[in-house]
């Protein structure tokens, strides 16, 4: 199996076999990321294409200081944020206490859900909720980092997350 360094070197020399190896090594996982950030499969496919094009175009910046998979994942996420930037409309000032409500739903219903069900629920979320939920819950970014990435305040990020969870709760209880 060719290691990441050889693949990157080949890709930098525009070697088509290396580019194909690069794609096949990361396409599955990155498609998973794209599916979560988009609202349907077709958009996710477009996102994957766009992300890989950006990855190949910026590969000379990769310094082997972290994992290649982590690097390309960041590219995919930033590509998604860039694509959905126009749709992301957040309220300027949202106080967190406004959205603090009781969360009660059936634990049983949650446990019965498959990954496909969860993905369908994510797809149903408004783009702002979905983006913040993905970044915080699954990617593990802090609200401060999300605020910087999306150009919003920490509180707005928190409230978007809370509203996302509420929306998910409603979907689960349907």
């Amino acid at each position: 199996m060719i290691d990441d360094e050889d693949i990157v070197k080949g890709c930098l020399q525009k070697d088509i076999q290396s580019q194909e190896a690069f794609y096949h090594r990361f396409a599955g996982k990155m498609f998973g990321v794209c599916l979560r950030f988009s609202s349907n499969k077709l958009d996710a496919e477009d996102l994957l294409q766009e992300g890989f094009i950006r990855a190949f175009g910026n590969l000379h910046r990769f310094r082997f200081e972290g994992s290649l998979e982590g690097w390309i994942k960041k590219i995919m996420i930033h590509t998604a944020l860039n694509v959905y930037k126009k749709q992301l409309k957040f309220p300027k000032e949202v106080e967190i206490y406004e959205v603090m409500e009781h969360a009660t739903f059936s634990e049983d219903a949650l446990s019965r859900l498959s990954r496909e069900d969860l993905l369908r629920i994510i797809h149903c979320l408004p783009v702002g909720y979905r983006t913040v939920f993905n970044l915080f819950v699954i990617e593990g970014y802090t609200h401060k980092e999300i605020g910087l990435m999306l150009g919003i305040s920490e509180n707005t990020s928190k409230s978007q997350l809370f509203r996302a969870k509420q929306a998910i709760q409603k979907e689960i209880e349907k």
Partner: protein
Amino acid sequence: MEEYENMEKKFREAFAGYEPAPPEQGWSRLRSNLQPEPRYDGFLSWITDLPQSSPRFFRLSIGFTAAAVMLFLVIIWFSSGNHSTIRGHAYAGELRLCKGTAYLFRVEDKALPFDSLKNIRSSEIDEKGYYQFSQIKSGKYLVRISPQEFSEGYKHFLSSWYDQHISPDSAHLIMIGAEDLTVDVHLLPKE
């Protein structure tokens, strides 16, 4: 808030290492984006698309130049093989004509008298009375010599057609194929 924590955990676990099958046409689509079909820029595109610093470009440049030179030489060789030279001296009496002009006419009519004569070339006669027409295609020709006005030859001799004829109708027809010909012209005296 414990329910939400469970929810987060559920999502986190569900998508940890999530690796769905990528789109079927994903790679072919990406490949066409990365390396679009070469556009046709004429027959030189196969060389001009190469990076100019590449050894392949250098080798192709050398090869292309050599081929062009060879082609040029072949053209020259073939063209010279199908053409001839008419050369000779112009005489004014016993002496060679020092100043004058030789005219070459191509005869396109099949029979006399000539309806049309086409002057295709002229050549200055040098001080030794020599003239030359090179790269002449095969065919029928007439040569006419005119002494330069107010020269010594002009005083005593007429412009004449080869060989010593006053008009083209009576001139000697020069048939030329692939060989070179020597055509000496004697001018007619005025008296």
